[in-house]
């Protein structure tokens, strides 16, 4: 039963990811006085891409053509270990939060390789920038996550969330720091403004788009889907770690429905906030990103330290 729920939840994750990004786009359009596309537009895009015959550069090797599958499945796997609507999730035991970060790394590794595979300048540029930014973001993320895991003294995400739930409403300064750190990291990692602009194709500023410039057809679809999944994963992480309330602790139908509603609400609000932020803030120059990320890192570290020094009960 548990395993079935886990599979269903994962599929839910995968299915809802495009919707979330559509919602984000919708909010943004609204804020910018533009006409928003339909919430189903991302699904239409995906289907269209999947139907097309992919065009692949002559120089491309199997790395290029297989990477989308690897990236996508790594993201799916990541989705399977993050509690979405219930914490009673057996899959979380097979991969804890460190492994989750590992999945992200895995996907990124292949994405960067794929960028380098064709041998254009853009691919190299994208890979180089992506690896730089992620190597700064990854420790910040781990710091933020460690704050949680040390509070709960477990790296198992489901158990950690349960711990936060059971503890009730406790104001932890460390969590404040960690929350902000994680948000900053999430923005950087999902390629949002101010670090990257998902809508741009201006060569000199793009990061994520530069790597996938050569992709088309179903490959592009998978990669787009994977990045939508990643956005959702971060959103769910933030929502469920720091505000776990509403998530189902038992496997009743009612609890699950509540859980689904709760997470939908949380994500909707979160994305709306992100949209506001993206509207207000301008994109940074590439070499300002380090300051941004070291700030995130600092926040994560502060969270960790304040947890250890102020809160730990010894």
């Amino acid at each position, binding site marked *: 039963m548990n395993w079935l729920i886990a599979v269903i939840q994962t599929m839910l994750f995968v299915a809802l990811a495009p919707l979330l990004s559509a919602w984000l786009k919708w909010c943004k359009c609204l804020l910018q006085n533009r006409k928003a596309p339909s919430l189903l537009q991302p699904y239409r895009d995906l289907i269209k891409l*999947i*139907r097309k*015959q*992919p*065009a*692949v*550069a*002559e*120089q*491309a*090797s199997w*790395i290029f*053509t297989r990477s989308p*599958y*690897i990236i*996508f499945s790594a993201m799916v*796997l990541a989705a399977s270990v993050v509690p979405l609507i219930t914490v009673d999730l057996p*899959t979380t*035991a*097979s*991969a*804890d939060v460190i*492994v989750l970060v590992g999945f992200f*790394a*895995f996907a990124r*590794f292949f994405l*960067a*390789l794929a960028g*380098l*595979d064709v*041998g*254009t*300048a*853009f*691919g*190299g540029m994208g*890979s*180089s*920038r992506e690896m*730089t930014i*992620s*190597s*700064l*973001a990854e*420790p910040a993320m*781990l*710091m933020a996550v*460690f704050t949680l895991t040390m509070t709960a003294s*477990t*790296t*198992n995400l489901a*158990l950690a969330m349960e711990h936060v739930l059971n503890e009730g409403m406790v104001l932890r300064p460390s969590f404040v720091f960690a929350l902000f750190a994680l948000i900053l990291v999430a923005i950087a990692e999902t390629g949002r403004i101010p670090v990257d602009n998902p809508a741009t194709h201006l*060569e000199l500023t793009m990061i994520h788009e530069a790597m996938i410039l*050569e992709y088309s*057809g*179903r490959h592009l679809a998978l990669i787009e889907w994977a990045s939508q999944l990643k956005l959702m994963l971060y959103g769910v992480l933030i929502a469920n770690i720091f505000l776990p309330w509403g998530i189902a602790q038992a496997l009743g139908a009612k609890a699950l429905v509540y859980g689904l509603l709760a997470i939908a609400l949380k994500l909707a609000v979160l994305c709306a906030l992100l949209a506001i932020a993206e509207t207000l803030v301008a994109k940074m120059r590439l*070499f300002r990103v*380090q300051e941004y990320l070291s700030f995130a890192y600092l926040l994560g570290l502060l969270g960790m*330290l304040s947890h*250890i020094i102020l809160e730990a009960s010894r």
Partner: protein
Amino acid sequence: MVLILAYAAVLLSLASGLSALMMHQRPALEALAQAYSRLFPEHRFFRRLSTHYLEQNRYPSTLRQGAFALLGMSGVLAISAGLAVMLTQQVLTDQIGLGLPWLPWHMRFDGLSGFFFLIIGIAVLTVSLYGPGYVEAFSEDKQPFAPLGLFTGLFVAGMLLVLLADDAFFFMIAWEAMSVASYFLVAFQHENPANRRAAFLYLLMAEVGALSIVLGFGVLASFADGFTFDALRQAHLSTSWASIAFALALLGFGMKAGIVPIHVWLPEAHPVAPSHISALMSGVMLKVAVYGLIRFCFDLLVEVHWQWGVVLLILGTLSALGGILYALMQSNLKRLLAYSSVENIGVIFLVLGLAMIFMANGYPQLAALGLLAALLHAFNHALFKNLLFLGAGVVQHQIHSLDIDDMGGLIKRMPKTSFLFLVGCMSISSLPLFNGFVSEWLAFQTALQVFVLDNGVLRSLIPVAAAALALTAALAAACFVKVYGLVFLGLPRSRNSEKAKEVEDKGMLLALEILAGLCFLFGIFPSLVIALLNPIARQLLGQALPNAEATSWLWLAPVTMDQASYAPILVLISVLMAAGIAFRYLRRNPETKTMRRTEAWDCGFGGLTPRMQYSSSAFTMPIRRIFAKVWLIDEQINKDMRGASELDVASIHYHLQIQDHCWPRLYQPIVHAINSLARQVGRIQTGNIRVYLGYSFVTLIVMLWVVSL
């Protein structure tokens, strides 16, 4: 029985070395064989020997294969000895009547030694598979096989003996034999002055390290009666003396292991040796140094202090970060790998430091976790670093260069090598499903146990170290994306790599395949190794991992199932399922199943050339900008101007030189000090005999005055 296996491993490696010396004895051997075939005409063997194996053209390659076969057998025996002693959990001791009259060579073979035997054995076995094909290309004129084979054998024997040694004197002999033999290997291609310089630096630092170790043992011995490790274990040292001994051992073993800032020999020496030797040095010899440190700190020094752990932690963090940052900047493939070894050794030291801290604070179980993580990482690093060095050797073998900026596009030309190399890159970048990730994961788990400690300094220090570890891992991934992307992907950057072909020698590929297979195997079933390691921790620390499930085949849960768990096999299955479904589903339409091959997007300018690709220094430019303070960067851009008002750029020269801070800060002052001291001292010898007489005279007067006091 087990000990005999171990001895046999040592003897076989020696025999392999000695057999290499027969390179120039072909006429003598032939004469011998002919004499025998005359004596025993009925035995075909001798005739065949002289007509077949000893034939002029075939003899060198026969001999090479023979020498490597002996080495391989030595490797197999080392593996079996190591496994046997670990599985039976014995402690075997023995004495050999060599050495000093009152101090014969003491031998001891226990789980810890056995584990490192296993590491060496695997490495030696793969190297011996790889070797014949690799050295085939060496011309006997320029790179004679005799010294190469001889010192390889001695080197392996030295390493094995270090592990067996049970007294300080014998330990030093084995240790130095290992150092000297590897020195000769580093100096093997000595036509290049840079190689000679590297070899000198290496030997010098090895010597300084060895002296420091001797002194460390000396401190222990002056509190004990005798030099056997048993006697040293009984020594009762005050905290300060114990700390001095620890510092000396750390300096000595650290120098060999290559921790920052005493790592400078490593990136110089490792790349210049032949690749299979680099693999042994980087993959295995550094581990022997780790072994030494573990033996010294956890076994010989009875009590560990948490301050030592902090020192290790800090040094390890520095090495890990420094190593990978320097590695990123390299464009010489083997140099890059050598720096990456510094990083991995740093990780090992960091985790050892954690183990020490937990041990000193009275948490032997957590200490066992740390020790286990360190040992596992040592093991894993040996596997993937060997794989990468051997892979780099294959690339070098095929395109005759080690400069990353000469490579590119090899994935098409060398499909098998490139795949195996990819496995190595993924392991070293600690991606899930591969072995590097497991030890890294354990390291994080150890660090996360910090909440049990009382000390505020430690409580804040360890998370920082953990963060640095995370940064290191991320940078390592960036580094190996660069390596793989530039070496194997994209377009070929030179004619040599354009013409490159897959290596034909089966042995070379087999070696890579074995290592890659092991990397994957132990990434999926880490418990296989951890089960072996648990008794070692019990032996050294008196405690093993707390959780019985830690060693189950499915789950890896070092502390409790609640705290952390990892089931790589489940992850693998899920990945395969997800990828498989996506793959099948998306390609179900036969019309779009085939991909259309087109030109790459070139912004409409037309004609992509390989020179438009990102180069090594371009790839790392953002990181170089961000961490600018870490290196001494000398960056120059010279533009040749042209045209009437000199505004057109005719050509641009970009020059980039990156140097270690350690050179000007640490080493040059020492060199300078010694040289100027020597110059000062030189002034006493003026060449004038009257001055010399004056010395005698003054000495006499002073001495007479001294004794008459």
